[in-house]
């Protein structure tokens, strides 16, 4: 009996979906927009995340040593910095490496290179490049280094020439704030957009079913059970969701192909097309699942109103 009913419900839902072509089309259109919004949020989030990670990556503390500082002392300091829980990693750049990097950076600048040659010896000191796990943790590391600056001495002259954090402090502070508020602001915008489009979709389906309220009354009159009346409507809602979901997924293909190189230039780290392809199964389930849920729940609630005696 349940099998027969299920078969009839699916058939009836399918036939009604087809015969109410215009209503189905309108509902799918609105639902596509909702799902598109939802999907876009995934992309915006990914882009934002990637850019934030990159900005965070650019924040660091450089400790410059005097040219006479012995390598052993620097490495000892490096080890003690690495034991700090806030520190993600510490990179040691030796004097030679610093010189090589400097030369590479100025390879087109003959004047500078000439000046360097005339100097005869390597004027650059070694340095340590420190990265924290969180932007907010740089303060702590800087404080620690301040103490170290006073302690690490060679014949009463400090081996640390300068710590650039103090110079960059204001810039880093500002950036941390921007990063934080960008995340919060992004989340609020996302929440508002999602809620608004959900309500619009729900209303569209409710309106589509409103046109069938007389039909529902007739079905009740011939003694159809509530679940038998509701079934085809819910199935139709699920079909809206599936079609809208597939349309959305298809639309994202050319869009990300087009936006991919653009975002790559802009945010330098993420290609939206690659992201789409790599996270396709995740996006597929989120978009299609949301569509099916939205269609089914909206229809269920809409019909429920007319099924009450």
């Amino acid at each position: 009996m349940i099998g027969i009913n299920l078969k009839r419900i699916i058939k009836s839902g399918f036939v009604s979906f087809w015969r109410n072509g215009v209503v189905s089309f309108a509902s799918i259109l609105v639902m596509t927009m909702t799902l598109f919004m939802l999907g876009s949020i995934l992309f915006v989030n990914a882009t934002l995340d990637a850019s934030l990670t990159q900005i965070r990556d650019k924040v660091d503390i450089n400790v410059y040593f005097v040219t006479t500082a012995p390598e052993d002392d620097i490495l000892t300091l490096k080890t003690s910095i690495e034991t700090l829980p806030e520190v993600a990693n510490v990179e040691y750049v030796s004097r030679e490496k610093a010189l090589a990097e400097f030369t590479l950076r100025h390879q087109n600048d003959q004047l500078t290179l000439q000046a360097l040659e005339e100097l005869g010896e390597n004027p650059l000191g070694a340095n340590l490049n420190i990265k924290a796990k969180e932007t907010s943790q740089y303060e702590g590391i800087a404080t620690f280094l301040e103490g170290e600056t006073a302690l690490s001495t060679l014949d009463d002259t400090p081996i640390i020439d300068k710590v650039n954090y103090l110079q960059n402090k204001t810039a880093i502070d500002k950036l941390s704030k921007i990063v934080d508020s960008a995340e919060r602001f992004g989340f609020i915008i996302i929440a508002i957009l999602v809620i608004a489009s959900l309500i619009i979709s729900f209303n569209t389906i409710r309106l589509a079913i409103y046109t069938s309220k007389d039909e529902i009354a007739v079905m009740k009159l011939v003694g159809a059970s509530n679940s038998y009346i509701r079934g085809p409507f819910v199935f139709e809602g699920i079909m809206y969701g599936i079609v809208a979901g597939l349309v959305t997924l298809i639309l994202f293909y050319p869009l990300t192909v087009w936006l991919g190189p653009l975002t790559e230039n802009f945010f330098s780290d993420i290609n939206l097309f690659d992201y789409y392809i790599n996270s396709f199964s995740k996006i597929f389930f989120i978009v299609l699942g949301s569509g099916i849920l939205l269609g089914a729940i909206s229809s269920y609630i809409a019909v429920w109103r007319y099924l009450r005696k």
Partner: protein
Amino acid sequence: MIYFDQVSKLYTGGHTALDKVTLSIAPKEFVSIVGHSGAGKTTLIKMLLAEDIPTQGGVFFESSDIHGFRRPQLNSFRRRIGTVFQDFRLLPNKTAYENIAFAMEAAGKSDEEIASDVPHVLELVDLGDKMWNFPHELSGGEKQRVAIARAIVNQPDIIIADEPTGNLDPINTFEIVQILKKINDLGTMVILTTHNKGVVDSVGGRVITMDSGRVIRDDKKGKYAL
């Protein structure tokens, strides 16, 4: 078989649609309920279909109060009643065949029964050739015949026809009344409301006359008397 016990219905604003109506209808009876618009005919039908609840009194079917039914009982009760309305109330997106099939599906009939009974009942109301037409492709009389076919397909105990001829011309009216009489001859109780004198007189059965929510006449072999 059907018993109205002191049924009153008051709508908001104090309007009395039914005023202590008491009557009983036996199986296989053909009852015409007549009265002017607003006399309470349709309210009486609504009480019988449990579409609305009485303010006072009760409606009994085979000695159970139909307003005390729970959902599943109510659904199975409604499947024992076939209804025909002035405005046909067909499902607009379903063909004549599907409209009738829907009533059978709702009653849990098998696909085989549906495939054999639907064409048969459509032949009975002379619509065998319009089986696959949608309601908007049918004339008023044809729609009403589809509605009657739907009402009788589950072999109900009762047929309720609420002003079934209200939207029809005299020829179609005559045909519908003939079909209802035939159904009654086969042993089904028919309750017909109308304010068409010709219809009542041609049926020639029991006539209940209503006015201002009250039964003012109940004649075994009645004529239209308003």
